[in-house]
């Protein structure tokens, strides 16, 4: 149980917990620059992490979709689907944390802003992916059609989260003038919390995905056994 291989394969799971505990404790206790949004600036450790987790999950889903198309194994399709499901969960959390933050800083939960609308549209594409999956009854055909659509959805995600917000000029959301939507005006001490927090959220998201994939595999194995 405590051999090197086991540790190497699993050390990132407790690491995510450690990083997130650090992010929560340090995130609420360090001193932050005195801006006009006060302590709500601390939300940057959590809100931005949701979107990085979403990007990691959708990327994993995208890779599994490509793998399904090239190798044709159903396990890859199931992994792609789970990636989108967990990704949608983190996306919704990202929108909720963003709305709470926006209520404090802008006075309203939603404004007509390219960053916000882009995030909403990207989630919409992935909801459409789920609708598409439920519309095709045959498993093999569903896997193929969904994989193709998933590749398009990932392109839309990159366009709406990566390209269009950076070109926008009239936006309240940080990260247009300085080019990057995630790393805005943070001082060195905040970065010491920010980067571990981001890593922690990504690892936690991948852990959840990993657990769901294993549960799905057990389910399908049990079903096969029943059939025999």
């Amino acid at each position, binding site marked *: 149980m405590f051999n090197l291989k086991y540790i190497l394969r699993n050390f990132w799971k407790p690491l995510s917990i450690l990083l997130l505990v650090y992010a929560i404790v340090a995130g609420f206790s360090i001193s932050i620059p005195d801006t006009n949004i006060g302590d709500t600036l601390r939300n940057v450790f959590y809100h931005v992490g949701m979107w990085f987790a979403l990007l990691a999950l959708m990327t994993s889903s995208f890779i599994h979709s490509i793998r399904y198309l090239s190798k044709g194994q159903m396990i890859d399709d199931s992994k792609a689907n789970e990636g989108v499901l967990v990704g949608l969960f983190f996306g919704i959390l990202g929108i909720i944390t963003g709305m709470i933050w926006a209520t404090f800083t802008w006075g309203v939960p939603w404004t007509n802003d390219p960053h916000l609308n882009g995030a909403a549209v990207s989630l919409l594409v992935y909801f459409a992916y789920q609708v598409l999956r439920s*519309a095709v009854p045959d498993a093999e055909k569903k896997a193929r059609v969904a994989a193709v659509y998933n590749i*398009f959805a990932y392109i839309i995600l990159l366009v*709406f989260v990566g390209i269009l917000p950076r070109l926008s000029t009239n936006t309240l959301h940080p990260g247009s003038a300085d080019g990057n939507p995630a790393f805005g005006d943070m001082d060195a001490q905040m970065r010491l919390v920010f980067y571990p927090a981001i890593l922690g959220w990504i690892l936690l998201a991948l852990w959840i995905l990993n657990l769901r994939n294993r549960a799905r595999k057990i389910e399908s194995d049990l079903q096969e056994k029943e059939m025999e």
Partner: protein
Amino acid sequence: MTLASEIKALFTKDLKLELRQKYAINSIILYVVSTVFVAYLAYQGDIEARSWNVLFWIILLFAAVNAATKSFVQERPARHLYYFWLSSPQAIIMAKMFYNMLLMLLLAGITYVVFLLFLGNFIVGHLLFLTALIFGALGFASTLTMVSAIASRSDNNFSLMAILSFPLMLPFLLSLIKLSNLALSQSHFNLLAWQLLSIVVGLNLIVIILSFILFPYLWKE
């Protein structure tokens, strides 16, 4: 047969079918004219430039979705099987795409003329507007052809067509609305116009390349 000759044969087949039935062209003209006429009656000549622009693209979008649905969804599965044995999947998707591009260009031209006739001219830079319109029509055509192919693999494909295509069309649509908004106030191509045009053209190229690569996976049953 080479790919080019296959594409040409399939393309002329679609064109001949269309010219014989004149179903798509007539229904498009009727659709555009009647929706614009309803807008004309409702606004009673009191329309402002911004609403004119938004109305233009919304009517064009819905007309385009209606027109493109025909390409895969309305054909019978048996005929798809026939094509499957006859030619390569790349030739099929490219032929459909070129045909839809022709159709969309025609549709965009008709919408442009009908809008100018009924709702008045708000465009300052006609060249800028027409450039946006042409590249927009090409983008609509390639995206909708691929979505139509995806939707045709499911059971209830008409409603799915709208659900799948609207989010994919949004980057096109947003850039195009901004671009034509520029054309309503100026006629020269400034930096923003070039940026938006390159987004539309770039996205269109991505969609075409991805369709070329991915369509074979959709095609085999």
